[in-house]
């Protein structure tokens, strides 16, 4: 089936199979491999994207469900070749190690700060608890989220 959606501000079309996940469509049909596949069962958050501004696991959303909707992926966060402030905060805090969880965490953080510009620590923990990182122990990710929040307020 054909779907039409807005991805990172651009109208895109794709020819998808009914059972296909949005993650698969993004990665394999639309040339956007930034969202990662680490479990395909909604457990790790590596595939996190924004669907109409809401954080979802792209591995659990059917491509067909995104038809007519708006999707933002990690590729679409920054503007004019500049890193988004969340991405920059991750660099500055040393919050990236292997990087496989990173796109998902960056998108999740951007969603959090959109919703709650000055989150408490508990809010941050809660908001990021769906994104697993095996490398960092989350401490520098926390530093990054706090710094990015500070940069807005």
């Amino acid at each position, binding site marked *: 089936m054909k779907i039409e959606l807005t991805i990172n501000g651009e109208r895109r079309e794709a020819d998808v199979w009914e059972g296909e996940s949005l993650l698969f469509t993004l990665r394999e049909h639309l040339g956007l491999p930034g969202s*990662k596949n*680490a479990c395909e069962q909604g457990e790790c958050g590596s595939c996190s994207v924004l669907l109409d501004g809401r954080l979802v696991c792209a591995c659990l959303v059917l491509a067909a469900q995104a038809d007519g909707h708006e999707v933002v992926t990690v590729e679409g966060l920054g503007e004019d070749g500049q890193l988004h402030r969340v991405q920059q905060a991750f660099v500055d805090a*040393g919050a990236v*190690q*292997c*990087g496989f969880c990173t796109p998902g965490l960056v998108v999740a953080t951007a969603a959090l700060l959109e919703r709650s510009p000055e989150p408490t620590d508990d809010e941050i*923990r*809660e908001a990021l608890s769906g994104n697993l990182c*095996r490398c960092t122990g989350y401490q520098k990710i926390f530093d990054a989220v706090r710094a990015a929040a500070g940069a807005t307020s």
Partner: protein
Amino acid sequence: MAVTEKAAGAYIGSPVLRKEDQKLLTGQSRYIDDLTLPGMVWASVVRSPFAHATIKSVDVSKAREAEGFVAAFTGADLADDWAATLPCVWLVTEDTKQPMHRPLATDKARYQGDGVAVVLAETRAQAKDAAELVEVDYDPLPAVIDPEEALADGAPILHEEFGTNHCFTWRLEGGDVDGVFGSAPVTVKERYRQQRLIPNAIEPRGVIAQYLPAQDEYTLWSATQIPHILRFWLAIVLGVPEARLRVVAPDVGGGFGSKLNVYAEEALSLALAKRVGRPVKWTEERSEGYLATIHGRDHWQEMEYAADEDGKIRGVRARLVVGLGAYLQLVTAGTPILGGWLYGGPYDVEAYSLEVVGAFTTATPTDAYRGAGRPEATYLIERTVDALARKLDMDPVEIRRKNFIREFPKTLASGLTIDSGDFEGALDRALEMVGYDAVRREQEERRQRGDTKQLGIGLSTYTEMCGLAPSRILGAILYAAGGWDAATIRCLPTGSVQVFIGTSPHGQGHVTTFSQIVADRLGVSIDQVEVIHGDTSAMQLGLDTYGSRSLAVGGVALWNAAEKVIEKARGIVAHKLEVSPDDLSYDGGRFTVAGTDKAMAVQDAALHAFTAHDLPDGMEPGLEATFVYDPPNFSWPGGAHIAVVEVDTETGAVDLRRYIAVDEIGNVINPMVVDGQVHGGVTQGIAQALWEEAIYDDDGNLTTGSMISYLVPSAAETIDYELDRVNAPSPTNPLGVKGVGETGTIASTAAVMNAVVDALSPYGVTDVEMPAKPERVWRAIQEGGAS
């Protein structure tokens, strides 16, 4: 050397921001799953649902009808494709039993997940669907998961040719063990369980294999920590010339030892690419990985200490029974032995005895998981030290102080020599940071008032050996490879500096830290340094990344290669400036002659080396150097970690309140990167103590088969740790570095469990099996009170 160069410039020791991050943060990284080749087909492996079963027949006929089907092979079909078994690099004794391990099983399946057939199809989904149509007729056999049960009479035998599940018994003794134990006034004996763990790198494993018949050339892209080692062994397994095989590790998303292996799918995909004449891709599903990627730990541990009344430990006697799983993967047998010299800990012990018994079990093979042998050692040592302190009614701090090694170099009763350390300095700092007396006071107050939330303080003072390793020692202990590493520096004529390293990072930030080393040593800007890694055709020499070795071996090779570049450049510059090489000083990337205005930058020397119009007689053109560094000793990090936990005595819930880590890891190249390594390592060790466990049922089914049932900690479980360092630089290498990749995991499990037991000591609790889940803690309180 004739000049006084700075040992460290502006970059070494600074928290330089990572050069790797831009691509990783913007989705421009290229992991295996992001790569595609024209004409590529997908592989799906048919895996045994049984832990132990005779394979009576495998029928692929229905799969042939499936949409997109390309080919299917059984273990028997491919049996002749293998020139050798999948390798184990370390058969730890002369009589270690190594079973034949083919990429697909032919006679029996020996663990749940053992591959029995493989199907190729046009897409991943089609390959998976077709694989489900393969019909395998199994005759189930009894399973055995516990290593002690596997050694008992009547246990089901995995490999009939051996007539036993016993794989090896490795022993090490030093000092007068019988004498010390015979005369010691105090002894304690403890027994603990090191549960099985699943490494859970967030990037699943994956491979793409290509075969070009016209060239008879193979290329393997793999999510691996070890492209060089992989190339060597796959050439042997496939029986192809090593020169015809290129291995590339693209961006790799974490490993922790789980990608330090030669896996069935790596060999399979190469063989299949040749058979079908198309590139073959395979990526692991998470639950598939839980079965098909190595596990860690799985020991029964026993420790006996012989001590004086005042707490001085005189002898240690330890015995481990290790569950190896069904086959020997790359370091399966050697993993427990990596802690084999360390069961005295950071303590001055005169008599040493260790016996390690390896047993085959019908489970996924165990192998190196972050720390590999050393977390297990530290756990047993540190738990037993606390047991001894309880017996003697001593404070855990006091007993450690009584026993620390203070003079270096110190040759251990186990035979190796610790060249440097500062165990007491680390402990002092950690105690100061935690405010030990105040925390003990609060603990006492809570005990007095019978608070339902009891406080526990747990110490873990540790040493470890890493920087694997002096090649001669590795040879002496039957390890099949060397322990050197290599680096090449090439100064390009246009000014940039290309660096080729033999280590293979997968999250550790080598591109940044190694750039710091080169930039400082050569006196150039870090932006001029380009680090290339993970491709055997770009850098043939290398032994890859594991065991916290990359900086302590590869980083030192790099430093020494920079020395060689400077020396060659010195000859060129001296010739051009018509001075003696001894008159040249080198600083900030420039050679100068004292008292004159004669000077030349190293980049200009590189251009002269390239044009070769006017080089000294006999000098080879080009400005590049390779150094292969074989370390003269292991490196010896150490430190002191302290955990403070609150245990709810009504529910058994353990709440980690504070965690202090003071590490002694030698000189630090990039403190930001180092902190990140400690954070991640500590988290994995805490997770072993509190949350993680791979559980098999009696039939050998892995019941923790997904991220839903196996608790990988999220941001909701972790806390912020308090870090500091003391320093006793390594005297054996010019950078004074030691290694930090595993220290956190090595230290933290014991600290947390000592804290849990400490909290519950008024209840008579002396042990809680890991992970200390609420139910187990609660039960221990009920049972402990009665004893």
